[in-house]
């Protein structure tokens, strides 16, 4: 268990700058989820924490100790590789036991831990197979098993559940949560799964092109994204960002949406601080509305929109309704069969959760 400080870390492969000064610091027991688009440098950062990639510049500290030059085996880290990296000549059992063997765990204990892990990963019947004889998801679980049997200072998980079915993924997520609750081991976890990020993380770092965009607890990242990028990236379907203008009307902010059904539309009741209100009054903003803020009903005038639905996408539990406001596509999540495509619908918006962004800097307006 340990704190982890990543201090202005850079990484280049030749001319390609992959990490451009990343600083993240988490405390003992934190569960950090790294979010970011494909290729933004998440795995690279993980590898550097593990000591598997050299650090071009900057410092990484684990438990207040600079580890830049510490070999991986002395960092006491357990890691799930994105590419699994299973030992191909060993059976699943041997793969899982290898780390314990090296750390001198006695055989009986090893066997017990392995069985427990296999149980948890629902693969007790596969223990004597070789990786080559497993399915993709089974391989991923072996990779997972190799990490969870250990009790390291730091867990690093690189998309450990990406190839599992939804049901198993929920189980595993719960198990990871339980593991973290039990051991309290500081963890860094890369995932693209919204729910994993939200349910597991105590801290979320959103990265883009090797730069951290926001580091905060998950709810904050979701509710108060630091900038347009984070707003768009976190949440699926993504937050819709409608261009508009900010107007201050007594105490509450009013955003004037550019065009709805050929005329500008005012929505009111957007939370915003006094200072910002003063500063941004009359300026162009982006109005961020998450799909679930819509509901199919008429509300107060400042919260109601009359829209023409373009497309309807059923997703099972809900339906996504797509329509245009001010030239941008807006997504609303509504219960199934409550709206129809190519028809007009009345939607109300929970404006208290709307987020505003400066149209120029794309930063959030508090």
């Amino acid at each position, binding site marked *: 268990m340990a704190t982890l400080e990543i201090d202005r870390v850079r990484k280049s492969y030749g001319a390609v700058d992959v990490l451009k000064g990343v600083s993240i610091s988490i405390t003992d027991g934190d569960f950090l989820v790294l979010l970011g688009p494909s290729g933004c440098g998440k795995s690279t950062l993980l*590898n550097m924490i*593990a*000591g*598997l990639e050299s650090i071009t510049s900057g410092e990484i500290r684990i438990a207040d100790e600079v580890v830049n030059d510490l*070999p*991986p*085996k002395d960092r*006491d*880290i*357990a*890691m799930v*590789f*994105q*590419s*699994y*990296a*299973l*030992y*191909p*000549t*060993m059976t699943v059992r041997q793969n899982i036991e*290898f*780390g314990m063997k*090296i*750390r001198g765990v006695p055989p009986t204990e090893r066997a017990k831990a392995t069985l427990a892990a296999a149980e948890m990963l629902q693969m007790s019947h596969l223990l004597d197979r*070789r*990786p*080559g*004889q*497993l399915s*993709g998801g089974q*391989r991923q679980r072996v990779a997972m098993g*190799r990490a969870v049997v250990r009790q390291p200072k730091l867990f690093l998980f690189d998309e450990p559940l990406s190839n599992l079915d939804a049901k198993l993924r929920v189980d595993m997520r719960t198990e990871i949560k339980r593991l973290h609750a039990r051991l309290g081991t500081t963890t860094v976890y890369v995932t693209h799964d919204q729910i994993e990020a939200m349910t597991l993380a105590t801290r979320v770092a959103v990265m883009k092109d090797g730069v951290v965009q926001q580091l905060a607890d998950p709810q904050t990242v979701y509710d108060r994204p630091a900038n347009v990028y984070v707003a768009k990236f976190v949440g699926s379907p993504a937050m819709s960002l409608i261009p508009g203008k900010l107007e201050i009307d007594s105490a509450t902010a009013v955003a004037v949406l550019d065009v709805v059904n050929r005329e500008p539309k005012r929505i009111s009741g957007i939370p915003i601080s006094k200072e910002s209100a003063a500063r941004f009054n009359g300026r162009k903003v982006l109005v961020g509305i998450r799909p679930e803020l819509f509901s199919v009903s008429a509300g107060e005038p400042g919260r109601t929109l009359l829209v023409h639905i373009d497309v309807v996408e059923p997703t099972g539990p809900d339906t996504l309704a797509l329509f245009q406001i001010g030239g941008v596509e807006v997504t609303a999540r509504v219960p199934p069969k409550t709206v129809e495509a190519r028809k007009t619908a009345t939607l109300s918006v929970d404006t208290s959760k709307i987020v505003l962004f400066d149209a120029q800097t794309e930063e959030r307006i508090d």
Partner: protein
Amino acid sequence: MATNAASLRRQHGIGRAFIYGSLFFMAAFYLMPLWVMITTSVKHLDEIYAGSFVGLPTQISFDAWRSAWSEACNGTACRGLKPYFINSLLVTVPAVILSTGIGAINGYVITKWRFPGSNVIFGLLLFGCFLPFQAVILPMAQTLGILGLAGTLPGLVLVHTVYGIAFTTLFFRNYFVGIPDELVRAAQIDGAGFIRIFVSIMLPTALPIIVVSCIWQFTQIWNDYLFGASFTAGENAPITVALNNIVNVSMGRKQYNVDMAAAMIAALPTLIVYVVAGRYFVRGLTAGAVKG
């Protein structure tokens, strides 16, 4: 539609037939000299000298084999090849193990623990492959003399090991290059050190190349004449020196039948190595290791 499938099956069959055909054709070509050797070894010497070099024997006799095994003369010692087997084994086995082991770990370092200059070192080692051994015999002899190993089997083991390293390193380096680095990384994370990774992860995946290296080194050392003749003498001589003395007569008649039998007998251990080691040419050793 069934006809289509049938024609495809036929096509497939033709493909297989072509593969087997070419393999058997090549095998026949490769066996030709062996055929000559075997027939010669069971011929009577007079028949050979009467002009029947290639062709079937009129009468089969295994005298030549017996002679080669236990009677043929190496100088005044007429005990056949038998006594020299053990010398060759005493040299070959340790030298093969040593050079293969060293080569394996060298290849491992050069591919998985690269450091500035490691490729240069590899280049330096490699250039040693091209050394004409005849040119280094004298300084090597002097060196062995200084080390007090002149004329001994350990000395010969040393020489073979030294000059085998270049090759074994080459084999292993070029095999390990293809093994995903991720495996080493995973093992490092598991806490395995330099040696442990080598033993537990790299060696098991290196089976085919261990086989190649052993085949090569065994063949080279077992069949080596130059070093054997130079760095041993008399009773210490390896089998090739004895074979050479049986085969290479200056002013006497060559006993072709015995020569052929002797050559085949001398080659037996190497052949056994080929057959036994060949089984470890296994497929898919790295299957399932990494994704992507």
